[in-house]
């Protein structure tokens, strides 16, 4: 009780920044741990700190099965992202820009997959493939990944389409551009940031998916599946290396775009 009260009065005194810092530290702790243990000279199980080494980083494919799983994951995520982004972008444009009879029904239908737990979607798809006589594998996994990414792409791109002033496309039409030129020269470049972030989200969701993949991939191994199975016996440090490098790459990309965006905005303000 005393802790709570002092916490509350602390909040009141304006220690919201401190709280936020703590929350962020909490979020980052396991990430930090994962990165640190990618440098651990581990024995069979990478659970106790032994000594510092670069070996795991220089010999990423020491576990060939791990590297194969990562390769599969990358392929699956790339293909699913491509398909989901294309389908989802078209849906998003149609939903924002056109009024048609079953618009709210379509909106609802696209919300449903997000309200469906992975386990239900995974088991449903696996049952469908089983009944259709198609065994689990690479293609069923891609199909499943496209399905659960689709709704997220639609939501992300829709937000971007909503901010797009219809007058811009009209101006294009007015300035002698035919409908396909309007799309490729005006609509698409302006939607691109939204489409890219949808693709990024899609890739992240797909790359990290475990449950749906587990039900539909059969003998095809993926990175999350590898970790899940390895968790019983002990995850090799190379898994930490791969996760860490994906993480660092993503963070560098995000930070770089943000920082460049920040300075661009600064420069724009300056000129004014």
């Amino acid at each position: 009780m005393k802790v709570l009260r002092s916490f509350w009065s602390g909040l009141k005194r304006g220690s919201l920044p401190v709280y936020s810092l703590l929350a962020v530290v909490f979020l980052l702790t396991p990430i930090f741990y994962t990165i640190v243990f990618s440098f651990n000279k581990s024995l069979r199980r990478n659970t106790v700190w032994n000594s510092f080494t670069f070996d795991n980083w220089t010999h990423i494919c020491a576990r060939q099965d791990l590297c194969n799983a990562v390769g599969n994951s990358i392929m699956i995520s790339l293909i699913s992202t491509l398909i989901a982004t294309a389908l989802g972008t078209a849906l998003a444009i149609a939903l924002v820009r056109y009024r048609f009879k079953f618009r709210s029904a379509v909106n609802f239908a696209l919300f449903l997959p997000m309200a469906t737990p992975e386990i239900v979607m995974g088991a449903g798809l696996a049952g469908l493939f089983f009944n259709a006589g198609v065994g689990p594998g690479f293609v069923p996994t891609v199909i499943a990944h496209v399905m659960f990414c689709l709704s997220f792409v639609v939501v992300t791109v829709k937000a971007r389409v909503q901010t797009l002033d219809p007058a811009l496309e009209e101006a294009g039409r007015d300035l002698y551009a035919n409908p396909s030129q309007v799309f490729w020269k005006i609509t698409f470049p302006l939607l691109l940031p939204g489409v890219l972030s949808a693709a990024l989200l899609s890739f992240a969701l797909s790359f990290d998916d475990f449950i749906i993949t587990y039900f539909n991939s059969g003998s095809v191994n993926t990175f999350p599946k590898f970790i899940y199975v390895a968790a019983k016996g002990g995850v090799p440090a190379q898994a930490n290396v791969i996760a860490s490098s994906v993480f660092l790459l993503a963070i560098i990309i995000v930070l770089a775009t943000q920082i460049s965006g920040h300075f661009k905005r600064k420069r724009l303000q300056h000129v004014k």
Partner: protein
Amino acid sequence: MAFAAFGSSAPTTQGQTKSGRVVLALLLPGLIYLVLFFVIPLVSLVLTSLEAPAASGKIGEYVPGFDIGNYSYVVTKYWPQIARSFGFAFLATIISLLISYPLAYFIGVKARSRPMLQRMLVTLVIAPFFISFLLRTIAWKQLLADHSPIMEWAHQVGLLSPSQSFIGSEAAVVFGLVYNFIPFMTLPLYTSLERLDIRFLEAGSDLYASPAKVFRKITLPLSMPGIISGTLLTFIPIAGDYVNASRDFLGSSNTSMIGTMVDADFLQNRNYPAASAMSVVLMGIILILVTWYVRKSGTEDLL
């Protein structure tokens, strides 16, 4: 004005048939996909849940039927898992909301004057998305393992009795769920708080509302869309999750959830009707709860 009002509906009025064809071309591929790989699987799930064992009696062979018995079987056998799944989901959602709201408020409202800081914080909140959630969960398992420094400290100050382990307990599972889903809660909250017009708050305090009242009467209602989507994005996946509860991660055999049972029945026991019935039960309860929740909060148009 008039222009803006007509502008958005312009394509509809420009040649009905032609724009109709464009809409169809945009919608059809996605909708066909949705029907083939979402609607049909759900229907087939329901059908499978009603199948009866084949006459051959072989494991994994079933014939179409109308065997309601699968449902009574899973409900009587797995009611602890059902109760645990929704109990965990409820608890973890509430805790996530309590942790996330002040954070989202700070990033969305207080950090607004410093856009660089704001963007950095958002990046840090979504950072966990970029690293395998299985590995993050394993990291917690090791950080909170019996002889880890954190647990040594917990035993010392008496948070845990000397013989108690944290990992494997229901509390550990809820902890893992909360951790894993905080970003899903924080992001939508941030999005709606970021749009919050500070002048409303100023108007509130100008009209003699105390800070607590301003929060309750203005900030909270205006951030309701974020709360709704945050809680939905958290509650639904948690109810279906079983990785955190797995004995190889933060749970034990005493923390199994619905997903654990679906996994076991589908992939190991090959009792497809039971696994399907279980999934249908999970989906059904979620749909009922979500419908009730959305109606109650009066935000149906958000969807």
